[in-house]
């Protein structure tokens, strides 16, 4: 056990997990918000673009996106993001994680919008608020509160899904490192529990925080 900790860079692998999570979470939030705006827009073709994105991405395995990013995008289509192969794989992992989870961010935001009863918008309009005002003062605050809990589950899933980047990052990523350790040293339950514990530590606070927050901020109806 001590040897394993000394010979393998487990903390380094988790640092990669954290980096991938933060970078791709920001990316997913940005792309997901844009797609969500498209999906609730009053223009038919924009809505179609939004739902096409969600349905295509949501039904594709992340593993396929990851594998394709290197084997297809870099090697064949020549889309190289960095001279160095490992950095290139790293940035592709961030992009694919962001693109994949953006579809779920979009759905989380939309479910927040869908929790608002029509009466709220009607009430806002009937007291004379303009479109922008009713958005800012009445609708968006409620939509945001309604989407905290689903956004939290998307973030947790994203953190766990960073392991899929092992497909292209290999041992730099925690799942790849665990595979190598297990292959070299044989099955070691304590090592597995260290990796598992790492993910529990990363995801548990997010689950608790978002549940509490969504409960505290929930709109009383």
């Amino acid at each position, binding site marked *: 056990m001590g040897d394993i900790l000394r010979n393998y860079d487990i903390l380094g692998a988790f640092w990669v997990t954290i980096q991938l999570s933060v970078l791709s979470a920001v990316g997913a939030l940005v792309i997901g918000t844009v797609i969500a705006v498209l999906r609730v827009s009053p223009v038919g073709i924009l809505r179609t673009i939004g739902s096409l994105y969600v349905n295509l991405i949501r*039904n594709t395995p992340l*593993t396929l996106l990851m594998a394709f990013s290197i084997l297809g995008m870099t090697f*064949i289509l020549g889309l190289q993001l960095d001279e160095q192969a490992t950095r290139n794989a790293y940035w592709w992992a961030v992009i694919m994680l962001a693109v994949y989870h953006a579809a779920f961010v979009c759905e989380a935001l939309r479910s927040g919008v869908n929790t*608002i009863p029509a009466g709220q918008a009607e009430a806002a309009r009937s007291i004379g608020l303009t479109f922008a005002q009713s958005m800012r003062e009445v609708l968006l605050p409620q939509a945001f509160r309604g989407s905290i809990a689903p956004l939290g589950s998307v973030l947790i899933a994203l953190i*766990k899904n960073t392991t899929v980047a092992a497909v292209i990052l290999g041992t730099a990523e925690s799942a790849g490192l665990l595979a190598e350790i297990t*292959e070299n040293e044989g099955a070691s339950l304590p090592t597995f529990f260290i990796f598992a514990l790492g993910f529990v530590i990363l995801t548990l606070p997010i689950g608790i925080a978002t549940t509490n927050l969504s409960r505290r901020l929930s709109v009383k109806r």
Partner: protein
Amino acid sequence: MSAETVLFDAPGPKARLRHRILTGVGALLVLLALWVVYRKMDSANQLQGFMWEPFVTDKAVWTAYLLPGLWETAKAAAASVVLAGAFGIIFGMGRLSPFRSVRWVSSVVVEFFRSVPVLLMMVFFFFGYFATASWLPNQYAPFAAVVLALTLYNGSVIAELVRSGVHSLPKGQSEAGMSIGLTDFQTLRIVQLPQALRAMLPALVGQLVVVLKDTALGTVVLYPELLTSAKTLGSAYANTVPAYLVAAFLFIVINYLLTRLASYVEGFMQRKKRSAGTPMAAASAAGPA
């Protein structure tokens, strides 16, 4: 409540003009995106006939690569779903048990397997146990690792569905069970669980999409599922990009149909009213991979 009706009024003449302009902009963006993809594919010589023709002309592409891959994917998904269902019902009932120790153990098991990434479990089971196990013929090792990992994760998700399904039933159901002299366990098994399972059905079908996508993780432990077979197909025919795109297309079509099935089942259950609980919508939250 549909989004458009909350957010927007019926458009007047100015808004209609604006919508027409945005329609034009949207169409332009789509065309631009398609053009960029076309140029990229063309300049990398990915649109040549010999790369795409085999999918239509060469039977071996399907019989030797894609269909066997699809079959392995379906096999792993089916086995995992059945086992996960059993796991979920057992531990879901465990979490509803009147005994604190049973509740506690089931909660720890469920919460643990829900928070550990599937891929970690898969590589650990494969490299740690199945690949080196003397009792398991070598060719079954990847299958065993994929199914076990998917069972533990999705079983825990289903256990949570069982628990929330039973909790969502009106209190009168369990009271009725108790008042005709059933024990706690009998009430759960005979009265609550059947209704909870019916209410869960749409969410269960939705979970099938997650399982199906997750079988693609099997490529890491060399399980010959659809993604792996697309990769070998790509190297055999020198058409990696088309092979991946076709595999993605197959995944998307199957999962889209399953999603549609889930919402159909949801509507069906709502009409049938065979359960005191309301049907649970298929979760749209991100399942791993």
